[in-house]
């Protein structure tokens, strides 16, 4: 019962902020806050596969793209009929229904894409998985470039703006709590066992391929939701938003914060999003410094900024041993 009260309070708080935030911090900062939220979802979800399960995916942007385009298509092409079906609702609630349906489609499509990539490739060794996921991301991008119904190389424009601070941060909350719960369940132990020692995990009855695919699909679904929120915020999608540099940025977020830790992923997402936004107006030299910082952190503090520090009561979970 207490759970529901928490959720109601959170929703009320988000709605309150939604009403006042833009006025308080201005449109530019508001946009950064939205981007931070979307990146938190991406980082926390990628952390599940890269940090917790110990598989190395560098194609997260691919699933992000799949979700973004899936949701945008559903809303763009199916929007009018969905709106007609729920015409009795006030306009704001109609928007919500549309966004939920779009995000649902995004999660399912991205999850299926994850399944399609995961089943064949998760049997492969780490480096190969890395390069397959990277290749998959590129293939998705090239496919989108060639699909005219979703804008092709012109980009997909005319997507209605449905997501805002409220929806993005509701999704952030759901993502963090879901993944936190998952990591602290029997599945979570299975994920970590695969990361620590696959052979021992198999010997203990853990179907390692299944566990890896599961982690991969869940991670992809959340990336898809992030994509949906992104598309319905910016109202325009272009394949170049999903280059593999996007994947690299998400990796940097989870590594800077500390691989395997949800708090680290959140911190990393906040830091990197802000740094990249601030750097945007300066020259390449700032980006050079940013990349050097990444190298130095890996050399001098490979466990990330947070290391094994945790916000929650230590419930038997530690960061990966090198």
């Amino acid at each position: 019962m207490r759970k529901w009260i928490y959720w109601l309070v959170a929703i009320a708080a988000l709605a309150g902020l939604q009403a006042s935030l833009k006025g308080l911090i201005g449109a530019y900062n508001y946009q950064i806050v939205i981007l931070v939220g979307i990146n938190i979802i991406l980082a926390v979800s990628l952390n599940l596969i890269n940090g917790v399960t110990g598989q190395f995916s560098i194609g997260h942007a691919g699933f992000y793209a799949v979700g973004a385009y899936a949701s945008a298509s559903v809303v763009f092409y199916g929007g009018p009929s969905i709106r007609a079906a729920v015409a009795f609702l006030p306009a704001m609630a109609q928007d919500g229904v549309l966004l939920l349906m779009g995000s649902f489609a995004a999660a399912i499509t991205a999850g299926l894409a994850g399944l399609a990539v995961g089943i064949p490739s998760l049997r492969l060794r780490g480096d190969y998985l890395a390069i397959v996921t990277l290749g998959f991301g590129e293939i998705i991008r090239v496919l989108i470039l060639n699909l005219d119904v979703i804008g092709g190389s012109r980009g997909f424009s005319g997507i209605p703006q449905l997501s805002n601070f409220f929806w993005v941060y509701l999704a952030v909350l759901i993502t963090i709590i879901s993944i936190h719960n998952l990591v602290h369940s029997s599945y979570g132990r299975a994920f970590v066992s695969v990361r620590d020692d696959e052979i021992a995990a198999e010997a203990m009855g853990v179907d390692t391929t299944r566990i890896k695919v599961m982690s991969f699909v869940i991670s992809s679904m959340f990336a898809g939701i992030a994509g949906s929120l992104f598309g319905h915020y910016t109202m325009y999608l272009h394949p170049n938003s999903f280059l593999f540099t996007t994947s690299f940025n998400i990796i940097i977020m989870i590594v800077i914060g500390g691989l395997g830790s949800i708090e680290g992923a959140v911190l990393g997402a906040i830091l990197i999003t802000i740094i990249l936004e601030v750097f945007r107006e300066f020259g390449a030299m700032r980006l050079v410094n940013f990349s050097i910082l990444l190298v130095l952190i890996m050399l001098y503090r490979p466990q990330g900024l947070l290391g094994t520090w945790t916000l929650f009561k230590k419930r038997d979970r530690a960061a990966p041993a090198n």
Partner: protein
Amino acid sequence: MGILDIKACTKRFGGLVAVKDLNMALQPGDLYGLIGPNGAGKTTIFNLITGVYAPDEGSIELDGTAIHRWKPAAIARLGMSRTFQNIRLFQSMTVLENVKLARHMRKKQGLFDAIVRTEKLKEEEKEVEHDAYELLKIFNLDTRAHELASNLPYGSQRRLEITRALATKPKVLLLDEPAAGMNPQEARELMRLIQWSRDQFQITILLVEHNMQVVMGVCEKIQVVDYGETIALGSPREIQGDPKVIEAYLGGA
């Protein structure tokens, strides 16, 4: 019909015949020793039984089910558990978590339960944790339950591996050189614990050792292999006097 039956198994690696025409039959409740000098093929036999390798010829049956084409996880689910010669604990998990993981394959919770943290999950977690503690107490590890497995001293890590294997509730437990790296005192204690576990949990244990003294004290039946072939089979007393065994161990010098 025994609990574990190996019939005419052969395994080759390239030109090398690691295991040749091996037969082995364990009856329920056996404490069975598999010994042989270094490089005799003992670990390969273990890997065949647990599904890490598939035999080129022959069959392996666990409790009447042919398992020699199965994956390790499936064999584990059917009721076989093992420890490793070079300890393979989950280093970044705590002692308690290592033991709890062993229950993953018998979990009742679904993904939904896990994500939403339903009452069903909480109850199961409580039960799993309780059982894990009970086992840890038996093996004297409960006081260190929340430490990282990698922080335990060597001997405790070995004990933890056995605890984890037992937590899967196996029918057959395979121990790969459990006393390796222990002093005689520790080894004797461990052997007593192994014997006790067999009686307490009513399981069958297959033990690999190359230290003869250890095996002699605890096993009732012993099979000796050398160059992948069985050279002797019998009670400890019979084995001790067997000239072929003596020759294998002394290198025929």
